């Protein structure tokens, strides 16, 4: 690893007097200084009031509420209020216990011992036990779901006593994997699932968990109603009920919010930039930016079929030229009006391992032209050097970003044909396509890049091809550094490892990163303590939210 980098990191920390918490807090405030306004613009929470129902407009019904059967991001904000994990990223971004009260690991990280909370009950009144943990871990390990990969090295899980469980691994596995955000990382009640077909269990639409809210009512494609769990092992919810109202499009949700039919909207990825800006200015509403785990990036197709069809992709000078030709500040701050916070690198800006000293290539069309000339891509009679394509799916702002990028690249002689499709077609044609279908030169993609560096690994580790690492990035040093970073117990050393990864990916211009984006939580003024919902957009719990009268 880079000792200079390590020393620089340590020096910075001392100069600024920053410990990890302070660094995280400073990053958070910087993030919230975007269009949502500074964190101080939100109302001070005041004294919590118990009672009431919070109606949250939500983009769609996940349909299956069992992470062992199916997991997707729309599921998480609902399920995280009903079920629990062993560990959790709390509202301050710290790794904390959820069902585990404490945990211990030896230096080699090849085992972990969890001391479970006592007196926890499932929502049906049955006691939570070590058997539930053992069964859950053993079951999910056999599935093709994402958490199974995180615990792939698990060789044994056993109870040491009624409240202690020990997990043994064949390879170092950090404790943070047990806070992994995905739906498959969940502890389910063995007495309700074991011995039954997971796919058809009726609890898939009426889950039983140990979370702050209990499942009360499910109106398919309309709403889910959760009610307070008075026996919750954390802060017992102030709300009587929490209702997720499924509204398939952001426009309808905004109308509902402005007319008072719902109190909050959350997770709408088709929320337009102008909508966000106008809602931010509405004096009846609060906008709460939440730290995003998602980075918008322009990916190059390094797969064999991509390189065969678009030879220019293999030339780093051309990729550098593209990076210099794109005015990221104009896109993020003017066109997207701050909805995307500029960042550079594979990690989210609020991720503690984000290294702000590794800078993006400056917007410099002259430099871009020079690089393209140097690489041998001269302008033709029509001024075009390269004819290429960029695929994207509509997401927060991509319908603005993609044409802007095409225009900017056109000015340096790279003619871009824009291709758009719905999500499934995009995956099939542009991201995952086998047998030569996946030969599109460039694609807009979003990647999960937090809370840990390891959460970002599937985007760049060659062993995650072709599905997660759909652009075919394959750099052995990066794979090796991800392995090291995962198990490095020293925070400074770990940051240095991930800084090195960022440097390598940046030098190679593996992606042109735009920035991090998170659809904000927008709520009526009566909804208080929005900041408690979560530190990351994929980890949200409403137990500390309350409604003023």
């Amino acid at each position, binding site marked *: 690893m880079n000792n200079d980098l390590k020393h620089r990191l340590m020096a910075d920390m001392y100069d600024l007097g920053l410990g990890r918490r302070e660094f995280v807090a400073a990053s958070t405030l910087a993030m919230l200084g975007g269009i949502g306004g500074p964190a101080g613009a939100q109302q001070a929470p005041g004294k919590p009031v118990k009672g009431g129902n919070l109606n949250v407009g939500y983009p*769609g019904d996940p*349909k*299956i509420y069992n992470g062992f*059967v*199916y*997991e*997707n991001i729309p599921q998480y904000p609902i399920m995280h209020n009903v079920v629990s994990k062993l560990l959790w990223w709390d509202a301050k971004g710290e790794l904390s216990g959820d069902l585990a009260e404490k945990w211990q690991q030896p230096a080699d990280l090849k085992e972990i011992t969890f001391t479970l909370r006592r007196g926890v009950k499932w929502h049906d009144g049955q006691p939570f036990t070590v058997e539930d943990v053992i069964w859950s871990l053993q079951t999910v390990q056999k599935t*093709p*779901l*994402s958490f199974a*990969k995180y615990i792939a090295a698990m060789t044994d899980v056993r109870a040491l006593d009624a409240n202690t469980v020990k997990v043994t691994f064949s390879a170092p596995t950090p404790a943070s994997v047990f806070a992994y955000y995905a739906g498959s990382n969940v502890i389910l009640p063995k007495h309700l699932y074991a011995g039954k077909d997971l*796919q*058809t269990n009726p609890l*898939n639409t009426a889950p039983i968990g140990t979370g702050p809210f209990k499942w009360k*009512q499910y*109106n*398919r*494609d*309309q*709403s889910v*109603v959760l009610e307070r769990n008075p026996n919750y092992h954390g802060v017992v919810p102030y709300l009587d009920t929490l209702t997720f*109202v*499924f*509204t*398939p*499009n952001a*426009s*309808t949700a905004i*109308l*509902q919010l*402005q*007319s*008072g*039919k719902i109190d909050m909207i959350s997770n709408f990825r088709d929320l337009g930039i102008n909508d966000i800006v106008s809602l931010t200015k509405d004096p009846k509403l609060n906008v709460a930016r939440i730290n995003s785990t998602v980075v918008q990036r322009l990916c190059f197709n390094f797969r064999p079929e991509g390189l065969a069809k678009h030879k220019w992709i293999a030339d780093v000078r051309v990729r550098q030229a593209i990076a210099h030709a794109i005015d990221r500040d104009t896109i993020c701050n003017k066109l997207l009006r701050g909805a995307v916070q500029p960042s550079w690198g594979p990690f989210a800006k609020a991720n503690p391992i984000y290294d702000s000293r590794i800078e993006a290539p400056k917007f410099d069309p002259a430099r871009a032209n020079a690089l393209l000339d140097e690489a041998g891509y001269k302008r033709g009679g029509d001024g075009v050097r390269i004819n290429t394509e960029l695929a994207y799916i509509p997401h927060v702002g991509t319908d603005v970003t993609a044409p802007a990028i095409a225009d900017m690249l056109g000015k340096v002689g790279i003619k871009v044909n824009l291709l758009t*499709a*719905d*999500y*499934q*077609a995009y*995956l*099939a*044609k542009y991201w*995952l396509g086998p047998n030569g279908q996946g030969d599109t030169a460039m694609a807009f993609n979003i990647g999960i890049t937090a809370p840990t560096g390891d959460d970002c690994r*599937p985007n760049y580790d060659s062993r995650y091809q*072709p*599905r*997660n690492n759909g652009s075919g990035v394959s750099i052995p040093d990066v794979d090796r550094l991800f392995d090291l970073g995962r198990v490095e117990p020293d925070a400074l050393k770990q940051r240095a490892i991930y800084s090195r990864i960022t440097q390598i990916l940046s030098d190679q211009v593996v992606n042109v990163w735009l920035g991090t984006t998170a659809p904000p939580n927008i709520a009526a003024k009566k909804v208080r303590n929005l900041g408690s919902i979560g530190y990351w957009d994929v980890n949200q719990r409403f137990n500390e939210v309350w409604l003023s009268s």
Partner: protein
Amino acid sequence: MRIAASLAQMAMLLMFVVLTVFTLVHMAPGDPANLYLGLGATNEQVAAFHHQMGMDRPLPEQFFTLLRQLLTGDLGTSLAYRMPVIDIISQKLPATLMLMAAGYLFALTVGIGAGIIGAWRQDTPVETVVRVASGLVYAQPEFIVGIVVLVMATTYLPWLPIVGMGASDEKGWAAVGTVVLHLIGPALALGIARAGIYARMTLTAMLTALNQDYVVAHRAAGFSERRIVLVYALRNALLPIITTIGIEIRFLFAGAVITEVIFSWPGIGRLIFDGILNRDAPLIIGVFFIVAVLTMLINVATDIVYALLDPRVSKGTRASTAGPAATS
């Protein structure tokens, strides 16, 4: 013999619908494995899924397997819902039928009523207003009307719910009231354009009927204008409208898809919209199959109603130029 021929025709039409939808589903890019397994699955797991679902078999074999299933009433299992397609449709179809019925009720009441008034007041500004308004209204697509209704309801009728169908834990008249309230917006959106069509058709048909010789004869015989318009002329004017209802049913299903998405109404329109986005092939094929069956049944019902209204049809006689059904 005629019934057997009709049934055979229906069977062939259904098979054509299934073949068309099957072909389109398989031509559309997208792998259901992404929906079922997620992006984290390995290629081996995806291949195993394809094998389990029979997706690695030749397409003709997949199609005939599907036909065999449909013949036994098995519409397959939804990849997204993980439950039998027939069960999901059973849950959702009543909501769509309710929406279509409400839309039709609004369209027929307002449309036919406006057409009658326009014809009754022919050669006055009232007729002109009905003619122009009906033309303007039926030119509007459902998604425009839906959004306008949504915005107007939000702005001027804040008490009117605009999303969903209401909670399912209410009972009795409270539940009925909740559903009716939730139905107003989407039914308006679905019915407004149709009301324009029926208003224009009724106006034209009524004007034609009111200019027939038998109407002159009835006036000369001293029948009241109200009776002439509402009993004799209207009965003849309704015939083309009844035919149109049967033809319109497929457009109403299509309109229901858009309306249900805008208003988050939990019917099969929303179901098919989500199914297509998710590439949930069993769900898509199952819904289209059921919609095709329903459309055919409604067309048969239309023929029956038509025959009841027009004795010439039921007796198999050809239409007389002089003689409407106004001989009663």
